[in-house]
């Protein structure tokens, strides 16, 4: 079965020199593609999780009483919102990367505490996190003052009213925006390419550098895989949104 497929694509590569689906019959290239996809998924999952955490913590810090803390969060958001994520990646990895401690399992080769994958996760998470902070804050603001007043006039403490009333509502309000930002984040993981993180784009480019004839099929594959990944995320988030829906609330 597998053999038949392989032969078919091998033949196709000969008949149509621009359509060499090399990863359909060459094990080494296939391995590259699969490991690339796997890396992309790991990258996406890690970044999504970390950026949400950053968003929540940031939104909480923004409500802090201490002005310096608020300014710090403000600066963080401005920096990451108004500079290209691509340059952020380069900056994080090469500029800051010089100053991170390393450990050395063998004589010379020192493993940095934070690998390029690690830096990609950090950099991209901080990038998306800056947006998440804003999203969560907006969600909290969207909860009507009157709802808080109602809980206050029932004798709730500030914390109780936050914990039981404001946050559950705020979270539902920001899900769509969060959803959008996370989709964006998954798309942005391709930029880790710049610091040689072996994700799907990196592997694809290296394949078509080595085998120019495989360029077209590999591009098609790239396109399809990313659309699928995004689709899975969107689908999952929609399911979650639906599960979180309150009967009769909202539309």
């Amino acid at each position, binding site marked *: 079965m597998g053999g038949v497929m392989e032969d078919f694509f091998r033949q196709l590569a000969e008949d149509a020199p621009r359509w060499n689906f090399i990863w359909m019959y060459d094990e080494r290239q296939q391995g590259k593609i699969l490991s690339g996809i796997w890396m992309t998924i790991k990258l996406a999952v890690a970044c999504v999780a970390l950026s949400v955490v950053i968003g929540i913590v940031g939104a909480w810090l923004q409500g802090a009483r201490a002005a310096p803390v608020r300014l710090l969060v403000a600066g963080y958001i401005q920096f990451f919102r108004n500079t290209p994520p691509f340059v952020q990646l380069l900056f994080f990895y*090469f500029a800051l990367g010089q100053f991170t401690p390393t450990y050395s399992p063998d004589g010379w080769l020192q493993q940095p505490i934070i690998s390029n994958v690690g830096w990609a996760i950090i950099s991209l998470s901080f990038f998306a996190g800056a947006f998440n902070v804003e999203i969560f804050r907006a969600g909290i603001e969207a909860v009507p003052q009157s709802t808080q007043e109602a809980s206050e006039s029932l004798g709730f403490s500030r914390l109780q009213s936050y914990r039981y009333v404001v946050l559950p509502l705020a979270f539902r309000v920001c899900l769509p925006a969060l959803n959008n930002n996370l989709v964006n984040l998954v798309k942005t993981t391709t930029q880790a390419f710049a610091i040689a993180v072996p994700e799907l784009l990196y592997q694809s480019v290296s394949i078509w550098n080595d085998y120019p004839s495989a360029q077209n099929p590999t591009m098609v594959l790239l396109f399809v895989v990313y659309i699928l990944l995004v689709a899975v995320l969107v689908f999952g988030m929609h399911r979650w949104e639906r599960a979180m829906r309150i009967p009769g609330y909202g539309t």
Partner: protein
Amino acid sequence: AECTNDTWKKVMERGKIVVGVKADYKPWGFRNDSGELVGMEIDMARDVADTMGVELELVPVQSSNRMQFLEQGKIDLMIATMSDRNDRREIVGIVGPNYYTSGTNVMAPKALALKEWEDLRGKPVCGKQGAFYNKIVEERYGAEIVAFTGNAEAKQALRDKKCIAWVYDDSSIMSDLSSGQYEEFEMPLASEDDNPWGLAVPKAEEQCVFGQFMSGMQYNWHRDGTLIELEKKWGIQPTAYLEKQAERFKDWLAE
């Protein structure tokens, strides 16, 4: 096919030759801090223009687009650190004696005392995206290539000890080592894949006036020691190849 000499005529008519050169390959082609393109290959291009008695326009090219530019007529001549390989000869007109050769080698820390290519097996090795020898090093010696988009990044990664070696052209590595900035590093291996470098004219001109002319230019450069001089001027390690060629072509005209 018959020679139409289109490119030659075009250049002469408008009094300007457009040459594709590298902008990110010191010291062959790079920018000085006012943004002008300079380097050994640029000097060669200028000599060509002067000899033809036309003005010179330089266009920076990438490894990935240099051949298409020539095919397309966007540039008339390409001198852009291109390895002379058979598959490339089918697309563009690579003429005359090669003006340089380089091999592939690695820059590695002295501390590791690498001896042979096999020592790279299973280890991370930094490289530059798009280099044709990445695949060779990877498949022949089992190194794990970590390819960056630029040399600055690759070298930085090596210094940050994120890989055990940086694989690149031996001539480039030599000039880095001789700069005194890389004292803990060496180029320990025997160069692989001796690569002649070729300049190229459009395929149609290969056997015609322009091709002949460029071929002649190169013979002359070899014969009168221009290349060796330029090599010195740009701080490139003297190569045996150029000396041999100079010797060989000394009496070319006499022949």
